[in-house]
Every structure is written in C-alpha cells, then in structure tokens.
C-alpha cells in the first residue's frame, strides 16, 4: 500500500514482515537486555553494507570497538566496509562526568547522524541507520522531562528526512509509553523466556503501519551467524515437489511401500520402544545412500559411534556412506536448547546444505520441550520447508507404551508415507510387525508383515495365515510345524491310498481269473458228469430196447 520495504538481513524475518522494515521510517525493536536487539540492528546494517548502501550504527551503550567485534564475530568484513565508507559507527554514549547547567537541546544528534549518513556524498535518506538503545540517549541528561521530548523530536526528524531507521530500546514501560504510540511506524517486540530451564526466544510484530504482517509469536534463535527465524514457506503451494520414487534398496520394503519413497516426500515411522525404528532408519540410510542420495541423519538418542556400532551388529554398515560423504550423522541433545532452536537449526541446515533426505530420530525428543500444539506446528513447518526444497524427510515418532499406539503428533495430512512398527505379544514373546498405514499415490501393501531384525539387516517375512487367524513368531513356527506334520501324515496316507488304488484292480482281476478258472473247472466237471450220465442213460436205453426186442416186443 505504497510502502516500500527493505530487507532485514535476518533470515526468515522479511517474510513475516511481508517484505522487510518500512523504508523511510523508524522501526522500533523492543526487548529486555540480552535478547538480541543489537544483533537485529547489526544484521540490518550488514545487509545494507553488503548491498553497497551506506550504513551507520549509532550506539548509546556499547563501545564502538565492541560493535566492530560483534560484526566480525558474525562473519562480516567490517574493516573492509569501514575502509570503503560503507559502514561507520557513531558514538552516542554519554560522556562520563558531564554536568548540566541550564537549558539545552539535542538537535545536534540529528546533525551528527546526517553527517555520518551523507559522508560518502549521498543524501542521508540513501543510507541505513540503526540506533542501539535509544532510551539511553534520552536519559543521558534528564530521566523524566525534557529528554523524552528530545527523543521524540529526533524520531520525528528522522521520519521527516525519510531515513530508514532501526531503533532498539530496552523493554521498559517508559520506552513503551514514549516511543511506541507516537514516534514509530513499526514495533517489533523480542521476548525471551526460560521454560523447563531452556531459553526460548520469540518475536512479535505489534505494529506495522500499512502492512499485512504476520501477527503470531515467531520463535527465533541466535547462533554464530546471528539471529534467524524459521523460514516461512509460500503457503500458496506448488510446494508439493515430490518427484518420482527412489528405491529403499530393500526389495521387500519397496514392495510393501508400493515402489519406494518419494523424493521430496515425507515419511513417518511410528512405534513403541524397541520395535526397530532406528534399525529401519539405518536400513533406509544404507539403501538411500547406495541409491546416490545425500542424507543427514539427526539423532537425539545416541552418538555416531554408538549408532554405527548398533547398526553394524544387525548387518547394516553405514561406514562406506560416511566415507564417501553421502551420509552425515548429526548428534543433537534435546536438552541443549529449546524446541524452536532445534527446528530452526534443522531448517537452516536444510536450506544451507540441501541434502536429498533428512532423518530425524526421533521427533518425539522435541515433545519434551514444548506443548504438543507448539511441537506439531513447528514440525509442520519443518515438513513444509523440506517439501518446498524437495528434501525427503523421514521422522521417527516414539510412542509410549501407555499410549496404546496412538500417535501424539498426528500430522497425517502432511505425510506421504506412514509406517507403523508394532510389538505383537503372543504366547510368551513379542514379535515385531510392520505395516504401511499410508502411502500416497502408491500401490502399497495393506498386509501386516513380520519385521525381523537379523544379523543381515532387516528381513520382512510373511505371517502364518491359517485357521482364520494370523500368527507370528514362535507361535507361527509351532503352527507351521504342526501343520507340516499334519500335512506329512495326509501325504503318506494319500500315497498309501494311491498305491492301493493301483493295486486293487489287479487284486480283483487276479481273483476274477481264479474264479473263472474255478467256474470253468466246475462247469467242465458238471458238463462232463452230465455227459457221462446222458451217455450212461443212452446206453441203458439202448440195452433195454435190445432186451425188449429180443423178448419179442410188446
């Protein structure tokens, strides 16, 4: 809306401010001592100097040499910039021992600032100005009365001159009353809180004239390269940059997943303690590195040595991947810093190193650091960042035993693939099982498989399915053995019956032959007897006739 904005030099902040600080206007950064205000100022100036813009830092507390040191510590070529006339420091610290006698006026400050800004021959408004702890300037002479008016008029003059200014002020009520409402167009409040003994820094934009800025509390961190915020991704999308699948180097796993994992996708592995999540990560690491992907394995639980040793024990050798630079193992301790810092570190690493894949074992370590809603929103943003940069993100979620296998993080909508590992209890043992809950756009298996960790890595086996139930593990072996015995018995009987079938017709035909022979014999005997009898009877008849004829007939 007619406002030009200038980059802040703080990664992630421009997006929240919808472009940057207001050009030609004063912006106030408020916050308690030690929360990083000065670093925001220095980064703003460094950003300017690196663009060839004359950048001036006015200090009301820190010695100029200290600020130079800070700049060097942030990695800025401050001496070169100073020599090139791109950077200079104006010392606005009160001189010790100064006394007041009568009325005075602070317009000279603006004169000094203008002179410094135009030292290269340009107009003051062409430069960038930062005033550190402006509140100290106001109280240099008069803690209550005149000084406040002097400060206000300085700010008014700065705005009238169109100088892009970043001002820091300690978070006192006085600063709030005197500066916020009247004199500045934008206010950024920095806050640091210590919760569970961990420091959390947040930033909030409480005022920004004419700009639709982000209104939330945004976590930020400070490291050796200054303050940074979690990068904000373009919410309007095209961030679905899954580009084809990559095999996991494990055929059964690929089959289970319906082909493999998406490049630039997201995978969640959930499971209770001891169900093989890390081992699966190890297996995936080995496979993905072998497929040529670069990978960062972030572990919160073990150091590199322990991890490699444990993987080697189950036949997964990651040392070649480390040697050829495809794999990097990052050890983080969840208690080292707050949740935000962890996630910002990860996000910045993704932006800087741009690995093909990132493993976080386990994201649950972060839930110790914040409430579930915060953790979830931070993770969502991390997943978002990885997706928008085409980085495959693999997260491990540890489910507590009492959780009844219900995910606490519950971010299914952002996951492309979700693998659930389970411990199945039966007949005095636990059996590891694997199943794919979800695999977007892939023909994933819906079956529960055995997930065996062997000395040759992960072996995925089929369960015993029979008698209307599924059985795994030893029970499966017992059942299978029983089934085998039963089968053997049946097979033997079948063979016997088959033999019998073969034999029986012969038996009967032999018996038939015997019977026929006997029958024939009997028939023959009968016939012979009949013939004998007939012959005998014929002979007898003939004899009788001969006798009768011989007696003279009747």
């Amino acid at each position, binding site marked *: 809306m007619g406002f030009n904005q200038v980059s802040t030099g703080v990664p992630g902040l421009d997006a929240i401010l919808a472009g940057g600080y207001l050009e030609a206007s004063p912006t106030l950064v408020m916050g308690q001592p030690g929360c990083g205000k000065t670093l925001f100022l220095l980064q703003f100036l460094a950003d300017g100097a690196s663009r060839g813009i004359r950048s001036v830092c006015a200090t009301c507390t820190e010695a100029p040499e200290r600020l130079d040191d800070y700049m060097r510590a942030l990695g800025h070529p401050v001496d070169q910039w100073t020599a090139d006339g791109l950077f200079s420091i104006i010392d*606005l610290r009160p*001189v010790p021992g100064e006394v007041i006698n009568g009325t005075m006026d602070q317009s000279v400050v603006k004169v000094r600032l203008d002179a410094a800004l135009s030292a290269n021959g340009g107009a003051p408004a062409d430069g960038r100005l930062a005033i550190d702890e402006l509140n100290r300037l106001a109280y240099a002479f008069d803690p209550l009365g005149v000084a406040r008016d002097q400060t206000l008029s300085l700010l008014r003059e700065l705005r009238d001159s169109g100088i892009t200014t970043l001002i820091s002020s300690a978070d006192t009520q006085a600063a709030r009353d005197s500066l916020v409402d009247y004199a500045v167009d934008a206010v950024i409040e920095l806050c640091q809180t210590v919760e569970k003994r961990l420091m959390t820094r947040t930033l909030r934009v409480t005022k920004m004239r004419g700009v639709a800025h982000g209104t939330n509390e945004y976590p930020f961190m400070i490291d050796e390269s200054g303050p940074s915020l979690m990068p904000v991704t373009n919410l309007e999308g095209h961030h679905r940059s899954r580009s084809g699948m990559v095999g996991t180097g494990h055929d059964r796993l690929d089959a289970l997943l319906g082909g493999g994992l998406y490049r630039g996708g997201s995978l969640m592995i959930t499971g209770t303690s001891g169900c093989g999540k890390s081992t699966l990560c190890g297996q995936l690491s080995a496979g993905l590195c072998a497929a040529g992907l670069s990978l960062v394995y972030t572990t919160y639980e073990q150091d590199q040595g322990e991890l490699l040793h444990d993987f080697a024990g189950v036949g997964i050798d990651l040392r070649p991947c480390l040697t050829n630079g495809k794999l990097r193992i990052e050890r983080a301790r969840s208690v080292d810093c707050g949740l935000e810092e962890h996630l910002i570190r990860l996000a910045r690493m993704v932006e800087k190193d741009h690995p093909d894949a990132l493993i976080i074992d386990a994201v649950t370590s972060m839930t110790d650091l914040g409430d579930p809603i915060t953790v979830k929103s931070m993770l969502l943003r991390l997943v978002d960042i990885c997706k928008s940069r085409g980085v495959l993100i693999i997260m491990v979620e540890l489910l507590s035993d009492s959780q009844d296998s219900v995910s606490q993080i519950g971010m299914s909508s952002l996951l492309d693939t979700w693998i659930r590992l389970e411990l199945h209890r039966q007949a005095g043992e636990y059996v590891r099982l694997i199943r794919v809950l979800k695999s977007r756009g892939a023909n994933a298996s819906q079956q529960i498989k055995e997930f065996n960790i062997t000395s040759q890595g992960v072996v995925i086996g089929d369960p015993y399915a029979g008698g209307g139930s599924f059985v795994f593990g030893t029970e499966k072996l017992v059942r299978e053995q029983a089934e085998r015995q039963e089968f053997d018995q049946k097979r033997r009987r079948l063979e016997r019956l088959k033999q019998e079938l073969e034999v029986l017709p012969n038996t009967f035909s032999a018996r038939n032959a015997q019977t026929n022979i006997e029958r024939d014999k009997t028939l023959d005997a009968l016939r012979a007897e009949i013939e004998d009898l007939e012959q005998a009877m014929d002979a007898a008849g003939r004899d009788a006739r001969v006798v009768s004829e011989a007696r003279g007939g009747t």
Partner: protein
Amino acid sequence: MGSPFPPSSCKGQALRLFVFGQSETMRRAIRNAKALGPVDVIDVRENPAAAEADRILATPTLIRADEMPARIVGDLRDLAAVRLHLGPPYDADLTGDASESPHS
C-alpha cells in the same frame, strides 16, 4: 575521550563551546562562556565533524580541553556553579562574577 580524530575546528583555546544556530539559549550560552575567558565557539551545523569528534549529544556544551578536562551541558545560566565545576583558574573570583548570571 579516546577519540581517534582531533577536532578539526580546534583553534587551541582551552574552552570550546558547541552551539546550534543562533537561538536565545545559544546566545546566552556564548555570553556566559565568554565571561569565563577566551572561548572557541563552534556551530555544530557548520562543523558536524567537530561535534562528532567531541561526542556532543546536546547544545550548548562547554568543553574544557586542557589538562583539566570538564564538560558542562546547558546555557551556563548558573555561572558560579560553572566556575566551581571548571576549577582553577576559572573559580578564582567567584564572588565578583555572581552578577554575570543571566537575567531571564
């Protein structure tokens, strides 16, 4: 004061008065300062580098730049207090110069 640059407008007087333009306050300060002895008057608008070198945060500011440094901010309306603060030799005739105090 650890300043790397010598004031460019330094004419060598022990007293240096920084003013901003010609307002009534500035004129009063100049009058009072001159009552103390020879003084270099520097308008910060004409010579911001000098203001920078001496880290001037307000005007008028009187600086004693010899081996007994002192700084006084304001129009020096209480000249007796000014003399007292500057010390020798400016505090020599305190009673006689009380009338030099400004009349509003």
